[in-house]
């Protein structure tokens, strides 16, 4: 019998801190997950009964292989995330993973532009920290509804990151959508080499459109409802252009990061 990787992890929750209204930062002892990269996710069991039945995919928000720790950032958006948010330090969480393919090309030396909408910042923050550490250039654009629904500046500054933030109600940074920011930026003289984005589907559609017309490659982190998380159930598919043909691809296994050029935003 060949040695197999661990899939199931019982991880000690070291801290659960609300860093913005409804945004919970989990610090976990998870040595076997700490090698995961930005864009990969864990599949979290939020409760212990059969309701809610399924796990919830949650991006790895930060991983520290040396310390054997990872962080998750969970925004309450329904029954499962609400249940998760109630977990207390000292409890054990039940995770599967790490799953999915992370953002590619994160070690490129040319500048990357990271574009996040709301909780979509969870994996991009990790990408930003990694580039920051490696001394690689990047810009980090972030959009949200309002100030209270975004982590405070200190949260980013503590990691040496200073995202450019806009809010829909103008309560923090400029007023507007992060895609408008991106549009402006792409119209500028010096274009970034590559865009990485994560956020709600309409935002991603617009990001893909903008990048395409600017001729800048873009990778998107897609969301989808999942059951297995490993590619077995075919439940999480999205339409993707493969060699000129539209085919279904599994967000969990073939993604969650897809080439923005290929994704079809038909639903």
């Amino acid at each position, binding site marked *: 019998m060949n040695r*197999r990787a661990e*899939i199931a992890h019982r991880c000690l929750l070291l801290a659960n801190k609300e860093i913005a209204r409804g945004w919970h930062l989990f610090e976990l002892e998870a040595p076997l997950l700490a090698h995961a990269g930005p864009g990969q996710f864990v599949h979290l069991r939020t409760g212990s009964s059969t309701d809610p039945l399924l796990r919830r995919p949650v991006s790895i928000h930060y991983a520290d292989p040396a310390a054997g720790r990872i962080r998750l950032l969970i925004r309450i958006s329904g029954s499962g995330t609400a249940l998760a948010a109630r977990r207390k330090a000292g409890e054990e969480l039940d995770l599967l993973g790490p799953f999915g393919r992370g953002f590619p090309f994160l070690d490129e030396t040319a500048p990357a532009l990271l574009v996040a909408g709301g909780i979509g910042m969870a994996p991009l923050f990790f990408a930003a920290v990694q580039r920051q550490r490696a001394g690689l250039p990047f810009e980090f654009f972030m959009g949200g509804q309002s100030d209270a629904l975004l982590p405070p500046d200190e949260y980013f500054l503590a990691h040496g990151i200073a995202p450019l933030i806009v809010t829909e109600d103008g309560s923090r940074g400029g007023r507007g959508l992060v895609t408008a920011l991106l549009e402006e930026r792409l119209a500028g003289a010096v274009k970034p080499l590559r865009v990485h984005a994560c956020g709600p589907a309409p935002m991603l559609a617009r990001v893909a459109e903008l990048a395409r017309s600017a001729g800048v490659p873009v990778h998107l982190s897609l969301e989808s409802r999942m059951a*297995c998380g490993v590619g077995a*159930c*075919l*439940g999480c*598919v999205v339409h993707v252009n493969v060699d000129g043909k539209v085919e279904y691809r599994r967000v969990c296994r073939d993604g969650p990061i897809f080439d923005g050029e290929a994704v079809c935003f038909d639903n």
Partner: protein
Amino acid sequence: MITDPRLALDLAGVKMQNPLIAASGCYGFGFDYIQWVDPREWGAIALKGITLEPRAGNPPPRLAETPSGLLNAIGLQNPGIAFFLKEIRPLLRELGCPAIANIAGESVDHYRELAAILDGLGEVSAVEVNISCPNVRCGGISFGRDPATVEKLVGAVRQVYRGPLIVKLSLEAGDIGAVARAAESAGADVLSLINTLKGMVIDIHSRRPFLGNITGGLSGPAIRPVAVRAVWEAAEAVSIPLIGMGGIASAEDALQFILAGASAVAVGTANFVNPHIAREINLGLQRYLDDKGLRHYSELVGAARRETDGR
């Protein structure tokens, strides 16, 4: 991997180390979990349903969670039998446990053709005929409702497939006993039940059905009591062995099906919550046999029926 002689069985010719089967559609073609879970923890793996032609499947969303249940509307997405033969079949030996091919068609001819192709393949230990999928318009469930249709379809498959033949039933048939008897008399070696129950969820904000396919199939613990009852009724109707499934997530759940009359049990949805479910259930079964001092789990098959005089 558990090799306890008290759990081993020969299911109509399929040699299984234990009575646990990965349910069709919930374990891909056997390899999606392989980097983490040893397939030999299973007695057998039922592969994702295959059709003659490749199928793209249903438009998303394909999944909706319901109280203690999962609605799915995959729509039998699969690469078709030709791809299966060429790309998947050669790999199946590496699984280390028997593989059961699950087939679906849009006509009796489709089923017959698929079964004929699979006949004699060493890599496929048995064929499971899915006549109960609620997620495809033509084919699937419409075949499984009427005893006469079932008899015709199973008979046609039986003519061309000589290996262990499993027929998968649903509950849409008002009278499960009649359908079970029809499959048995047409030559099925084993019956498996139940497939998912047809259900739907409506999104109250968009005011539309939530699933891309409108309806889906309900699986998971929510359907367990209904599934146990179906096994109970089928066990009354036929004498061929049964594979019970529907919401099994623990050894206790598996034992309910076994006591009701199932010789083996399949686990689908619970894999998504707990990928080590086969190992855990096997350990639980061993503990139960220890506690009760039993020499083989088969002493339990249908035991609840005997206790109640099969009432």
